[in-house]
Every structure is written in C-alpha cells, then in structure tokens.
C-alpha cells in the first residue's frame, strides 16, 4: 500500500519511462535529495534548478514549446506567487495564438495546512489556480488518484497543475485503492523505491512493474455515498469530511462526500446529481474564504439548482487571514477541522425550510 508520495514517484517513473517525460526539475528535486518530500527520488530525468521559481516556470514553458515534456515543481505553493504572470502565460499561450502553440507542461506543488508549516508552508493555491484560465487543475486525495491523475496530467496537451495535499503525502492507501502493479506488502515497496538514509550515491531504485492508470481529468469521485447532505471538497479535506460523516452516521445523519479531484474542468454533472439527491450542500476547502472556489460552486448551484435546495448552501473554508499561525491552536482555528465539518453537516441536515 503506497503512500501518496510513493504514488507520485511511481507515476513520474511511468511518465519518464513510458509517457515521454523528459525533464523533472525544481529546487532540490534531483539527486542527492530527490525533493523535500522525496517525491522525485530515484528518477532518471530529475535535475536541480537555481532557487528561482520564475525560472522554474519559464523553463517549463520553454521546454514545452520546444517539444519536450516537462514536469516542474514549485517546492511549496507559498513560493509560486511570484510566478503568477508566467502561469498566466502558460495558460494563455494557446488561446492568444489561436491554437498556434500549446504548452504541454505539468506543474506540481504541495499545498495546504496540516503539518504546522507556519505562515509560508501552509498556503492553499486552489483559489489562485482556478483564477488562471487555460490550465487544468487537479488535486488528489488518495495515493491511487495521485498516480492516475498525474499520469493523465502528463499525457495532457495543456498546462496541468497538480496540487499535492502535503498533509496527505505520507498517508497510505486504503484497501481496494491499490496502484496497479504495486507490491502488496508496503515494506517490500519501501525497500524497492525508498532511498536509504545517508550516502545514496550508489543506490538505484527497483521499480515494480506498474500498469498505466489514467484517472480522467474533470471527473469527480464519490468518496462516501449518502442521502442527506452533499459535501463538495478536495485534497486534504476529503478524508477529514469522510471521517466526520462516518461519525455523524451514529446520529442518523447520512452525508455524501464528493471528492472533486479536478478543479478545472470540474465535474458539474456529478455535483448536480448529488445535490439533486440530497438537496443540501456544503463546500469545504482550506483556502481563504473570500473569493473562494467553493463560492463559485455555490453561486452556480444557487443559480442552476435553486429550486432543488432545501437549505442555504454553506461554505466552510480557511479564515480570511494574512497567514496561518504556527502554534497548534492557531493552525487549527484557521482552517476547517473535523469537528467544525461535523457541525456544519449536522446543521444543514437538520435545517427546515
């Protein structure tokens, strides 16, 4: 049972050995470290860049224009803000040239809170990302989805942003969510693909024979089916919402958790189907609440499904603060937690029109 970070590494291995990935790069992405989260250990086409995020994104665009298939990493999304005009160029190149050029690159970056990362390792990027048209944006919540979405991102002819929920990078798959071809035993997998501590100059990974798995971009997944409340969420908040819903089952509240997986294009059909079934909707994410992606979903739901709703739609998001403070109490009070999600679901379930 792979962790998400192992799943990402295996997807990149498949990418560079079967899907034409030519360059996997970023700050500390290449040897000896293989990424600050070890997502790029042992890969063949990794290399280290100068500490220059604008250069990382510009490099990715240029490589893509020249026919290569780059996967660029921004070490933390907190450091992607100075690249936004280059992200806009990646997103507008096909459109502004009326299809003359396309920019097939993947940008991956860890996002969100949950590791006590303080002010500059806890940012979310989904609100920013969804305001840059021309990109596809995906965010997995399980190792299997991370594997399958990254392979789809690699194969896509457009710029694709792969947002890594950093709090889930070390979380293992649940039974039934295996990556096709991974060894059943997690210790065996670790021995095969995790670099040893200390000197690793002579180390080489032994990759399992993996099968390709393409999770389509634009398709949501029902992470927990239910009948009374729809929760629209993604990334780190998915397992949190599932746990909240499982606990609420004891109170006879039955919530459906929809893992969007793709933020753009997003799966409106799946959202519609779930909301029509439950008539109540809660959006949960960690980004700051003003001009939040969940607000967009609520606006569209209100416009298109108004007469299906039995309760005002609700958004549970990060507090609109300049940063996320380091201390336990500060981080916990700044982004949604399980208890708050439970309260919000229960309120919606009990709301009488």
């Amino acid at each position, binding site marked *: 049972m792979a962790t998400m970070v192992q799943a990402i590494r295996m997807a990149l291995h498949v990418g560079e050995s079967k899907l034409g990935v030519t360059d996997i790069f970023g700050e500390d992405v290449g040897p000896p470290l293989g990424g600050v989260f070890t997502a790029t250990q042992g890969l063949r086409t990794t290399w280290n860049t100068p500490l*220059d995020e*604008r250069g990382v994104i*510009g490099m990715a665009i*240029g*490589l893509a224009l020249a026919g290569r298939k780059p996967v660029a990493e921004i070490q933390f999304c907190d450091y992607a803000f100075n690249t936004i005009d280059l992200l806009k160029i990646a997103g507008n190149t096909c459109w*502004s040239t009326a299809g*003359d*050029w*396309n920019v097939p690159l993947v940008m991956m970056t860890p996002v969100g809170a949950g590791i006590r990362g303080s002010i500059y390792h806890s940012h979310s990027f989904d609100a920013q990302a969804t305001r840059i048209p021309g990109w596809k944006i995906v965010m997995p919540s399980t190792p299997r989805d991370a594997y399958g979405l990254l392979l789809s991102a690699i194969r896509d*002819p457009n710029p694709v942003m792969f947002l890594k929920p950093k709090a889930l990078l070390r979380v293992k798959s649940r039974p039934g969510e295996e990556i096709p071809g991974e060894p059943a035993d997690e210790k065996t997998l670790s021995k095969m693909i995790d670099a040893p501590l200390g000197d690793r100059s002579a180390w080489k990974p032994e990759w399992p024979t993996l099968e390709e798995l393409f999770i389509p971009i634009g398709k949501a997944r029902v992470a927990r089916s239910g009948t009374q409340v729809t929760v629209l969420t993604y990334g780190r908040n998915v397992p949190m919402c599932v746990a909240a819903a499982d606990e609420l089952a004891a109170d006879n509240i039955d919530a459906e958790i929809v893992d969007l997986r793709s933020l753009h294009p997003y799966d409106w059909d799946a959202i519609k189907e779930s909301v029509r079934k439950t008539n109540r909707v809660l959006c949960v994410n960690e980004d700051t609440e003003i001009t939040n992606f969940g607000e967009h979903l609520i606006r569209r739901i209100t416009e298109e499904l108004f007469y299906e709703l039995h309760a005002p739609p609700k958004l549970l998001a990060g507090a609109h603060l300049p940063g996320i403070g380091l201390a336990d109490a500060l981080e916990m009070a700044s982004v949604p937690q399980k208890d708050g999600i439970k309260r919000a679901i229960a309120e919606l379930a009990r709301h009488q029109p």
Partner: protein
Amino acid sequence: MTASSTPAPASPLTTELTLRLHDLMLRTRVLEERLITMYKQGDGYFWIGGPGEEAFNVSLGLLVDKGQGVDHDYLHLHYRSSGTLLAMGADPVDSLRQMKNTVTDPYSRGRNFAGHYSVRKWNVAPVSSPIEVQYSIAIGTARAQAKGTGAKGISIVQGGDAGTAEGDFATALVWSSRKGQELPLLMIVTNNRYGISTPFAGQHGYDQVAERGKAFGMPTAVIDGNDPAASYAAIKKAMDYVRTERKPYLLEAMVSRLHGHSSASGANFVKDESDCLALFEKKLEDKKLLTRAQMDEMRAKYTHVLLEASKKVREEPPPTPESIWDHVFADKNYVGGEK
C-alpha cells in the same frame, strides 16, 4: 552612437546584402508608418513597434536559422520586432490584419495587439506584452538545444534596456551560465535609453547593460545598432559563438526610438534621435549604390502597396463573438461546454 566597449568587427557587406538590408529596412519602416496611420485613423486600438530598430532587427532576421524544432533557432522577441519578421519572410499585410484585429490575423486571430507575433512553423514564440518574461521562457528552449542534445539550433531572446531591471533578465543570466550546464542562448538587449518615459540613468547605475554579462563569464559586446553593417557583423559573430560553443552571449545594441514608446505617447516622429534608415540611405547615396530618386520611388511604391492593402484589410471580417471560447485548451473546448 558609437560602440563604447567592443569595436564593431570589420565586415564589409556585399553590395547585394547592402541593398537587401536597405530594402527590408525600408519595407519595415513603411509598415510601421502604415500601422501608426491605421491607429490614428481608427483602424486599430493601439500601436507599438520598432521604428528606429530596423538596422539591427532586419540583420537579425536575415541571420536566423529559420524553421521548426530544435534544429532551428527559437526566437523570443518583444513588440518591436517587425524588422526581424519581415526579414524572415513575413507578409507585412498580416501585420495590418493584426492591427485591424481581423479574424484573418494569423498571429492571434484578432486577439492581440499589433507587433505581437507568433509563428510556430518558424520557432517564433508568442510575443506577450509583459516586459522581459521572454527571458525566463527562452532558457527552456535553449535547454532543449543544449550541448549533448545534438540539437543544431540556438535560442535568441531580445528585449529592451528598461526591461533588464526585471528579475527575468537575471534568470536568463543565472540559468544560462551554470558551469557544465551552459545554454546556447543569445541574449540581445536593444537599448533605446528609455523605459516608456524614464531615462536609462533613472533605472540603471551602470553605463551599459552588457557589463552585467561579464560577472557571469559570458562574452559581451556593445554595438551601434543604428549601423546595419556593424549590427550584421556583431550578430553573426555572437551567433557563431553560441552555435559553436553552445554557451550564452550578451549583445547590447544601441538603437533609437523614433516614434516614442507606443501610441500611448502619441507615436509622433521624434526629431532628435538618429534615424538608422536616413543614415544608411545617405551612405548608399554617397557610395552611389542607389540614388535619392530611386529610394524615394521605392518608398512611394511600398507605401502605396500597403495603403491599398490596408483598405482591403478594412473589409476583412472581425472574429465572431462565439470564437472567444476557441483554443482555451489544445484538446477539447471544456470551457465552451464540449465534453
């Protein structure tokens, strides 16, 4: 303007090349004047271009290894590069179409300003309005052509002097000069001594931008970009170095800005700057290669052709409102509702 650090290499142009340079410089000037007129007559919303840079930009266009893919040169230009495009064989009427934002505009189908070229089949990367971003992108095509890849082409990036204040210029210097990972990147700064209205000295503490290249161990040169012979020779020398050594070179060309920054500052002719075309024509007259009358006749002819073309372009259709949804993505039009 004279070269201040490196003397212009002596490379007498052949008569044929001299006349070709003049012809293209003249065609470029006439094109820019037509674009300005179109703007002033309401046949466009904005003008920006390169009158005053023809000597340098035409030379560049003639020297480029034109084609698609890593075995040819990538061009990361800015919005003053009409001379380079015309020298490469672009149809000036297409520039009129972009000015008039018709659907027939091959560079952007009515989406972008005049002078914002994009020609994938010639490796001309899309010109975008933000200053200097092309320097961050050029390192990417250059890496795809680096030593060891076997690629024959080089990457060429060009921008103005004021833009070098952006971090992207430092990005190109840093990334292209890493030892053992050098990039075949020709960095060109066309220095017109202004950033919109701010003079050079108000932005830079050094005398020449090229000085900065020395700290990164790359060869540099400062040349008179108003002199086509000096420009042609210096570009060729720099290109030969980058092509052979697969390492970066920083070339700074002193040029003029004959109609100001853009239509935002009126786009009127500036009298106190050197005019590369007038200077070159004087030389051609002195050398008896062309008479004033011949050159006046050429100018009148090119002006007439573009005037007539602009009338036709005026009748070409604008893009349709529905077309806004086209090309958001290279595969399906998800934004337009396609599934």
